[in-house]
């Protein structure tokens, strides 16, 4: 199968993630969209690894998974504290800092 198709899929996933971050209200969903973007990157890396004929891209994908896991820990901690304070995880409700 033509590897370019996987790149198109990766681009689509990345675009869905980007639009999700920009339009969704719930912080958890926004964060899931960021994770979707990271996974789109992983798909692209693995595809490029195949196209270039070396294994570097696959190794990078592992690094990305570890980094994403670390990011989840920090992110959920922050979203959890703000939810306990405000009883809401909506990013529209956190609007004290402006102008």
């Amino acid at each position, binding site marked *: 199968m033509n590897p370019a198709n996987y790149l198109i899929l990766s681009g689509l996933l*990345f675009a869905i993630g980007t639009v999700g971050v920009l339009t969704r209200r719930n912080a958890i969903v926004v964060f899931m969209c*960021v994770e979707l*973007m990271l996974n789109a990157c992983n798909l692209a890396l693995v595809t490029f690894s195949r196209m270039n*004929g*070396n294994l570097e891209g696959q190794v990078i994908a592992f690094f990305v998974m570890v980094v994403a896991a*670390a990011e989840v820990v*920090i992110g959920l901690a*922050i979203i959890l504290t703000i939810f306990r*304070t405000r009883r809401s995880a909506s990013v529209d409700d*956190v609007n004290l800092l402006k102008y």
Partner: protein
Amino acid sequence: MSATESLVLAAGSSGGSIQVPPVEYSSISPLLIVFGLAFVGILVEAFVSAPARRVVQPVLAFLGFAAAFVGTVLLHARRDTLVADALAIDGPTLFMQGTILLFGLLAVLLVAERRLESSGSALVASAAVTPGSAGSTAMQTSRHMQTEAYPLMAFSVAGMMLFVAANNLLLMFVALEILSLPLYLLAGLARRRRLLSQEAAMKYFLLGAFSSAFFLYGLAFIYGYAGSVQLGEIADAAATAGKSDTFLYLGVGLLGVGFFFKIGAAPFHSWTPDVYQGSPTPVTAFMAAATKVAAFGALLRVFYVAFGGLRWDWRPVLWGVAILTMVVGAVLALTQRDIKRMLAYSAIAHAGFLLVGMAGTNADGLSGSMFYLVTYGFTTIAAFAVVSLVRTGEGEASDLSQWQGLGRTSPVLAGIFAFLLLALAGIPLTSGFTGKFAVFQAAISGDATPLVVVALVCSAIAAFFYVRVIVLMFFSEPPTDGPVVVTRPSLTYAAVGVGAAVTLLLGVVPQPLLDLANTAATSGFVR
């Protein structure tokens, strides 16, 4: 033979077993010291009692950063790539690592401050206690402090040092996360105004994660183009024609988004004022100064080393971003009523001035940017330290109206702050002037004169809002219920003193540091 089999064979034929790269421990000793410090800090959290930690942690952090700084100075002549070319130890790396460590030292002084008010430090006693719940008011006056801040700062500094040394995009991405993740947490640790602080942490985190996804997608496209993430090999691949340039340009653009976010350049600046305002002031000072150094260090390395051959392609974009950043920073700062937000927009404008130096795309631009980063960092840390000294019953007097007449009630502190604001505006005899002179001169010699004209106009606009604060402090009547200035001698005053002294010193005798920056820059980046 299918493609999969050939891939496996190709991997197998290149040695079979994985070669362990040699690690030159002596050359990365500053990095190892700071990482070690961070881990020791975590062990201290686990095994030392809470009152003792409040003393042990800052002392440990200060000594660790100082030791790493000495290590950096001792290494000053090293020019080498290490650990299978993953790290580049060269002039710019060592200069920026030293700068980051000095800012770390000053930031430790600010975080360790416990004498600003009866309640103690600027950092929260327990981040897990919900604001507004039973016991949350007791938390405001508690002697406790979330001492995890020190190991978090050490991790962040280690990430920054790795970020400027990384010679490979993967390591750069990992370093970016190591420096950012602790900062997201630190942003949420303010003792007063907990809601603002938590909001700052969440905004910083969501937007930061968003931008690192862009950085990573850029990395993926560069890898697809060059077949490697080594900066040197990317440069070689970009120099040979015959490949699809689409991947290359996509990669450069997406990487650029990630970097521009970190330095706070427009149009990716919107997080800066919110995060600077909401974070605890010591943390704001630290991230304003040190993150900027780290992000610019990596930005310069990637665009000079890997994409140096493409400079005619990215220069126009850089021009656009620089102009937009300067204009947005200078104009929006005019409308601010909160002192920390105003300093945040000033930070955006300064990122624009730094991009002007980079737009020169020559060795002068490199040394000028490095010099500017030092001058800007010291002035900014001192300015934020002054902000933390002017307080009302509810914490810092952040609203500009509360600063009215401060020059009459406490002339010394207001005088120092006025001096720092003049330095940020770039008035002669301050470090701000010599720094701006260095980057603008580099830009003119690099044929970026129109950019310098815009920068001068923006400097003039920026000078207006700095001077407005000075006028407010000295030429208006103090309100009856004005803020109280902390006069007890304290660590914050030490940081203010160091920052103001360096600002004056680099304004009067800038030559030694300029020479140092030139020496570091002339050897350039190793590949």
